[in-house]
């Protein structure tokens, strides 16, 4: 459900920009915040707020990789796998997470707690390897640090 309040925020955004259409990206961010991913209802709400067709909104939503097209886990983990992290063995980190979580990259744990994704360079090359949990950085990740993160995620799942 896209709340009336969110729809209002989308309309406010549309009037903030010189052209309403410019608000399509921030409005899609709002959909994702509220729904966890870009739902059909969300596409329609954005289309209505910024004056585009749903098809045109879908076209924008699928161009940018941050807009998820499917439901995501409670903790969305992005591990950077670009060159600087690669040189600092991010692949071992991904493999470690895959083993511990029992899922492959791109998948969500069956309990819906963790989604494991890889990402292009996250602008944290000086503290490689890095990952993000729900958009927040965890830097200089070691395998021990990764295990600690998994423990945290499991605890919040149980809580």
């Amino acid at each position, binding site marked *: 459900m896209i709340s009336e309040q969110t729809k209002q925020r989308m309309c406010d955004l549309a009037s903030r920009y010189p052209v309403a259409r410019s608000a399509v990206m921030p409005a899609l961010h709002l959909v994702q915040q509220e729904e966890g991913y870009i739902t059909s209802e969300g*596409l329609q709400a954005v289309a209505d707020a910024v004056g*585009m*067709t749903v*098809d*045109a909104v*879908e*076209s924008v939503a699928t*161009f940018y990789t941050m807009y998820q097209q499917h439901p995501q886990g409670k903790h969305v983990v992005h591990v950077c796998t670009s060159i600087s992290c690669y040189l600092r063995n991010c692949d071992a980190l991904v493999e470690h997470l895959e083993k511990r979580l029992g899922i492959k990259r791109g998948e969500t744990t069956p309990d819906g707690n963790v989604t494991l994704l890889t990402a292009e360079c996250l602008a944290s090359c000086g503290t490689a390897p890095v990952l993000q949990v729900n958009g927040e950085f965890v830097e200089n990740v070691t395998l021990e640090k990764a295990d600690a993160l998994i423990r945290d995620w499991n605890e919040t799942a149980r809580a």
Partner: protein
Amino acid sequence: MPEEKKTDLIHLTIDGASVEVPTGTLVWAAAKQAGIEVPIYCYHPKMPPLGACRMCFVEIEKLPKPPQTACTTPVSEGMVVHTKTEKVLKARRGTLEFLLINHPLDCPVCDKGGECDLQDFTLRHGPGGTRFDQHKRHYSKAVPVSDNVFLDRERCILCQRCTRFSSEISMDNGLVMISRGYKMEVGTAPDHAFDSVFSGNTVEICPVGALTAASYRFKSRPWELKRTASVCNNCSVGCNARVDVRVDKVMRLMSRANDEIDDGWLCDRGRWGFEFVNSPQRLRTPMIRRSGTLVPTTWDEALFYTAKRFKDIIAKHGAQSIGGIGSTRTTNEEAYLFQKFLRTVLGTPNVDHHHGSFPAPRDPLTNKPWAMTNSIAEIELASHIVLIASDPYKRQPVLNLRIKKAMKAGAKIFVLNSDVTELDRLAARKITIPQYGAGAAAKLLLSNIVQGETLRTSNEAISARVLSENAITQEHAAAFGLAATAQLVELAHEIAEAKGAVILYDEMATLDPDCQNLAADLQALAVLTDNIGRPGAGVGPLFEDANSLGARDMGVLPDVLPGYQPASEVGKTYNEMLSSPEIKALFVMGANPARHLPKPELPASLEFIVVQDILLTETAQQADVVFPAVTFAEKDGSMTNLDHHVQAIRRSLRALPGAKADWEILVELAQHLGKTWDYETPADILHEIAENNPFYTGLEWEDLGKQGVRITQEQEVARA
């Protein structure tokens, strides 16, 4: 003047040949003019350059970073272009190799095979083989994106022509690019159909077999088709179409690009609405009513019987008791012969066809016949476009594209309608009026102009009439409410100040209650605001059918002869013929009056009904004699579209055995009634029209060529 024009020309050299083109021409177009093929995929002359496919490489001396793309580079004075250097050829080979790495080699089963730009350019510009030896991307084969269009994503080369048609031309953004990079594909929002009345154009401009038409898939190979230059028969726009026929069946209609009329587009209704031509329900033999039922008979018997009955009726009730209802879809030649048959063979003045409500055959103010005073192309020059009770998207679709093109060039659109229309979302202002409120809206606009604006042209008579109607106008204003009335005041001001306003209304809206003065009031509005005869300005009805205007021009009207020359005796109107007990016989050609009656039953007072048609319509079912006619695809003739272009339709396939063209039936009937009509071809009839109709003076069949002729003024033509 000619010298001044010369300075606007740019001189350049392409592969050693000198070329002269206007400023702003793209290198691609200049090469085309010089007869040099520069292959393109993403570029389309009706859309701005994109530069995406990287196919049109050329080498231009003195420009940095060769090769350059010809579709994005405008010409400049003294430019030296090479289209066949090693650098160019390698780059083109490279692009083709890239396009082919993921393209399936299913040409043998692809509808596009034989007319595919990827196939053709690969042969002419591509590498002989591929170095790609890995797995191609796979998608499920053709999936429907709508009921009419299928998409094969494997074949798609992502040139974006279709999606840009959707965003730039039809502006409905129905087909879009989804995802990005190597995962990019054409598509729509999930579970959303590609809902556009212009979707067929995307199929036509697709350079490969990615988009295919449901109606044409696996039906034919391009080399089996017989292609005939004709005109779409669906609405009054008259888009130029190529009729592609395979073994006596129409397979498809393709655009034949006439910039004056269709700008290169067709609507889906026109493109795919040809099933009636191939219909198994077509009439193949004349029929006569015997013991209450229509039964097949021979042509001889039907003609003989009809002639005899007409003679009997004339003897019994007089010729005045016969009425004739003509068609808005038959050719000018047939419309002309139809009224001539009624007036001179049968001797009755009762001739009409179904049309809007106009106060007289000609507009009393300007003495012009009722028709759009501007050309279709001139709409692009308008600063304001006012659509009153008209919805071209539904009724004259390709005109909707021209309006959108004008909007891109800066025109403001005003929609006055009681219903939602497609252009509402793009309009500068949508004014929602009450149902049947168009007549009142026109009066309010006119009254605001007369009383509130500085008039460019004063006209005492109009002003006096407007003032005399003031009380009624005030009542209308009250009914409209404050908001709509205020919007009309604002619009009246816009029209009065406009650089050029084009004011359009639907012909049939004039038949609505209280709208009988709609045409006259809007014409008056245009006269007072000087919106007639200036560039980008005009007024007029949007007609319904392919030859609605032609029927009027040919005098299929009760009060005028061909060319709007007054008839010596005024006959009964369409409605009168269908209600007056004095009418005993009805002759109907290509019309279906029963459908327009409250109950689909013709008056019982009719003793004899003759119908010429292609199908057993509601009217034909009630006839005493039915003659099987042929469709536009099976005959030659001319038609006159809504901006007065006279265009040729051409026989694209053999006439259905047993059926005849309407003009042939008329000639045979006249002969059976003792006349020596000796027309052998429609060209003969057109020749006679040209001698009788001041608008068509001097026009011969050969003049119509492939793009038709626009006739503007009777005086001009008469003098010629």
